[in-house]
């Protein structure tokens, strides 16, 4: 029984993915709601520019996974904004693989804004052991006006976000690691929660495969909300308490 349901689920899911991909490849626009934290990014960079401070983007050492990929999409956006406003951007990576990709992402962003001359590879850092201490050093040395923390955070989120907030920077963060969300929510001005960082990545990259799978997930969510509510209402109507209230045996 459960297996048949699972198979049906998978079939619908694959079909929805396929549908979404073909729609985007045909250039049909699919509306995705904007995530509030994304608007904050532009505001934060604007503020940093006014104050003549740099922005800092941190991708932690937690994992080279889907969260990191979403972080790259967001990094691309942040880098473009920085290039546009001519604000310095410092990027810190905790993983060597991520470092290689962020270099490419930032360079591309500067290229897209026609500011390749302003791209400085020395502002992209890879910190292996002692990630925490390294980032804290950057907070001390540089004047940071906007602080971005995206990716798979572990215990380092606590110290980094707290130290960042003391520099007076606007902080926008996001992770799908629920165990770290309390700290980020407490210490940052805007936090992208869980799925929001994937959606933000999709929103910014407009990647067909990602939009396709977003559509499939949306269907899953609508269906589960519907089943939950309708199922619960049905159970309420048929529950002995309500039946006796209605005077039925």
């Amino acid at each position: 029984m459960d297996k048949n349901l699972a198979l049906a689920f998978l079939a619908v899911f694959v079909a929805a993915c396929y549908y979404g991909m073909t729609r985007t490849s045909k250039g049909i626009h699919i509306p995705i709601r904007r995530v509030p934290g994304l608007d904050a990014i532009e505001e934060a960079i604007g503020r940093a520019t006014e104050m003549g401070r740099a922005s800092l983007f941190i991708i932690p050492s937690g994992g080279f996974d889907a969260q990191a990929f979403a972080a790259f999409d967001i990094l691309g956006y942040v880098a473009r904004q920085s290039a546009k406003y001519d604000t310095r951007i410092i990027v810190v990576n905790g993983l060597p693989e991520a470092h290689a990709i962020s270099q490419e992402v930032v360079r591309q962003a500067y290229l897209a804004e026609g500011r390749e001359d302003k791209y400085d590879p020395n502002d992209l850092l890879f910190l292996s052991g002692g990630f925490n201490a390294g980032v804290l050093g950057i907070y001390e040395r540089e004047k940071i006006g906007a602080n971005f923390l995206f990716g798979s955070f572990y215990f380092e989120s606590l110290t980094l976000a707290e130290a960042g907030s003391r520099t007076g920077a606007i902080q926008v963060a996001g992770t799908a690691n629920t165990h770290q969300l309390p700290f980020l929510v407490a210490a940052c001005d805007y936090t992208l929660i869980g799925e929001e960082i994937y959606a933000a990545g999709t929103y910014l990259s407009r990647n067909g495969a990602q939009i396709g799978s977003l559509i499939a997930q949306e269907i899953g969510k609508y269906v589960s909300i519907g089943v939950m509510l309708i199922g619960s209402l049905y159970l309420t109507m048929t529950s002995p308490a309500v039946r006796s209230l209605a005077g039925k045996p």
Partner: protein
Amino acid sequence: MADKIGIYLSGFLILAVYTYLFKPGKVYDYVEHVYVGFAAAQAIILGWKNIRDAAIRPLQKGQWVLLIPIVLGLLLYARFSKKMGYLARLPMAFLMGVAAGVTITGVIVAQFITQVRATMLPLISLNNVVMVLGTASTLAFFLFIPLGKQRGAGREANGFSPMTIMSNLGRATMMAAFGSSYGFIVMSRLSYLVARLQFLLGPWIHIIPR
């Protein structure tokens, strides 16, 4: 005797780690590197034991098919060569592909169907109402593609559309969930220090009576 020395030594090692709180420096660095070295040794040893018991010994008994994972495993090390590096993609793709397949078989029933089913509850008690509405609204918070045309746009801006209400309710539920998570994380982290102090004040300098 070896244990006695060990206990004294570990007390000093713990204090060496705590120098980090005042100034991260040489002492902390040395101690941390010893630990990282041991961790890497552990990974190598356990990896080797796994390979020996699950692949090499059965291979010696004639299970030739095990050559496939052995070759794939060895190819992982191609990444250390500039020329052959691309060969490491093969085992990577295998690792990711199987993990993806396994996840699909596990998640749908246990984490989706069963969980949705468990949220169908008769709404005749406060707990059930909170549970159903809390779960549904948390899910609604994560909806990114609005249903239908943008008819309710005006109401949405005022924050009165059903979607906004649901999504705010979801936010509130999640904040409460994160708050309670936080409480439990505090409990966990503090106990790490309690245990170290128990050791330092107990077996190390014997202030805590047995």
